[in-house]
């Protein structure tokens, strides 16, 4: 097993190639990245530089073409598909750019979904789902279907679904990509609050105002990490909701 010092998540020399031959797209060209417990990391970069590709690998939704992905020092590629499913279910909460909620299914049922696959009894499932919905400020709307909710509300449902299993890490791929700036700040305040409570969060964004919520910034370009360090000092006209500065651990 892994020694105690192993990071929560680690990518080592990860590459990802889509397609083959002349049409091959090298989305990742050797990424090294360590995420420790309790960190809040923002991954930045221009469109098409491989951010989502990296997130999908971190979320055990996709596999690298070469290189390794470790969770607490355990190589993920060696794991059985069912173990990966359990990993996604219990240790990772994924928030998608496009929400990815089940249509024609109430907010409550959407949030309960991971708990069903975790084998949580019905009663407790309901209780925890209601709790998570209340935590994202959607109390009273649990019966609504995605189509009856605004974009911001749908993203809250997605956040609640990611939270409900109390995962070790939340992976958010452009959680505010489809939202206006006010709603974006509400979602980010929510994530910042979770982080203060000790939650590990990795978030993709190409918006520096949004990234400012995260103490550590990793910048991608053309499938490679070109910068990794504490967030730069905020400009004078920092967004009103921005959290106070804190040193990167």
């Amino acid at each position: 097993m892994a020694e105690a010092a192993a990071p929560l998540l680690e990518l080592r020399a990860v590459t990802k190639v889509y397609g083959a031959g002349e049409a091959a797209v090298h989305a990742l060209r050797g990424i090294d990245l360590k995420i420790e417990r309790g960190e809040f990391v923002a991954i930045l970069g221009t469109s098409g530089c491989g951010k989502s590709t990296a997130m999908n690998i971190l979320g055990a939704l996709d596999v690298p073409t070469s290189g390794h992905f470790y969770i607490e020092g355990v190589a993920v590629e060696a794991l059985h598909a069912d173990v990966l499913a359990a990993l996604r279910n219990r240790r990772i909460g994924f928030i998608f750019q496009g929400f990815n909620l089940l249509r024609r299914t109430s907010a409550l049922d959407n949030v309960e979904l991971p708990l069903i696959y975790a084998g949580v009894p019905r009663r407790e499932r309901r209780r925890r789902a209601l709790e998570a919905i209340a935590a994202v400020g959607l109390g009273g709307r649990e019966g609504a279907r995605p189509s009856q909710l605004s974009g911001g509300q749908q993203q809250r449902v997605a956040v609640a679904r990611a939270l409900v299993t109390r995962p070790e890490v939340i992976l958010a791929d452009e959680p505010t990509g489809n939202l206006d700036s006010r709603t974006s700040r509400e979602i980010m305040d929510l994530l910042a609050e979770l982080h203060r409570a000790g939650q590990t969060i990795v978030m993709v964004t190409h918006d520096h105002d949004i990234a400012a919520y995260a103490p550590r910034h990793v910048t991608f370009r053309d499938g490679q990490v070109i910068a990794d360090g504490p967030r730069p000092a905020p400009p004078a006209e920092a967004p009103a909701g921005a959290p106070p500065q804190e040193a990167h651990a």
Partner: protein
Amino acid sequence: MKLRDTISVALTALARNKMRSLLTTLGVVIGVAAVIMMQALGMGATDRVTGEIAGMGSNMLIVTPGGAHRQPFGGSLLSAPLFEERDLVAIKDECAAVRYAAATNTRSVNAVYGEKSRSTSLFGVTPEWFEIREWGAAKGRILDEEDEQQAGKRCVIGESVRRDLFGDQDPIGADLRVHDLSCEVIGVLSEKGTSTFGSDQDDLVILPYSTFSRRIAGSDAIGIMQISARSEDRIDEAKEQIEALLRQRRHVLAGEDDDFSVRDMRELQKVMGTVTGVLTTLLASVAAISLLVGGIGIMNIMLVSVTERTREIGIRMAVGARSGDILQQFLIEAITLAASGGVIGILLGLAGAAGLAQAFDLPLRVPLAGTGVAFAFAVAVGVVFGVFPARKAAHLRPIDALRFE
């Protein structure tokens, strides 16, 4: 994940897409109902036909001139010599397994009473014919030995002839003209109705055989003998005895083919059974095609919804569903759909079969095997077409399922 949860997930998914679920089932419902109805119809018709043949006298044998290799109940009567009255007497006297033997002849004629006339079948029969056919008079009496001996100018008529020519009048004692012969009506036969083949069994006038021979046919040779065995299990015995006797009387040499044939009703039943069996198979095949079309309908709807379902599968896997969970869910969904479609189809099919039986005046038969096969096929179709796409999706990487379009 617990099975109970999987079942509730599957049922919830079905309830969520009521219209799609309904449309998916509809093909199966119609297909299964059609198979059952068509089979029930075919089996009912078979039953009725064989029942009717049995009703003609299940112990009955028919003896005709001409070899057995000729067409059944037809062939040329001319190429082989006809029978004589002595043959009939000999059969009655010498064949122990024979109970009754009658000579029959027939011709179509115009029957005239007063102003009214009707074309009908004129029969000449010896009295035992009534015993063989188990047919009695509803009014008056049937022909007896005395009528036969005297070659009496008397006749018995069928109900249809009575209705047409006599209406409200009492036919007994009236003079009926058939083929320039005037004869007295002495009885009306009980009504038998229409046969499955569509012929009116009550459309006939019956004369004593002797009268028919002399006045109508102009010869007393016998074309057809109708014989009844003493009991159903002595039919074969009777047949053998008759064959042996006739071979001897007609001087058929050993090794030569018979120049006559003795057939029993079982043969006719078998022929008719084959005919209706073919009919049943045909109907059932057409219905099976509709079941197949129903299956294709399921496939179509599954294919249309597969994008949506694949994304759903992607979402479920992204939050921790194992491919086994997914397969189980879709299997339960498919079985629920197909089986409930099958059950509804069976109920509709049985109701439809009862309706058809009523409409065509057939006995109601439930095709058990056919129902089972149709149901099993429906479930199989549902499972194959429902689970196949799900199986494919469940083996995708979650990200590919999420991206599927």
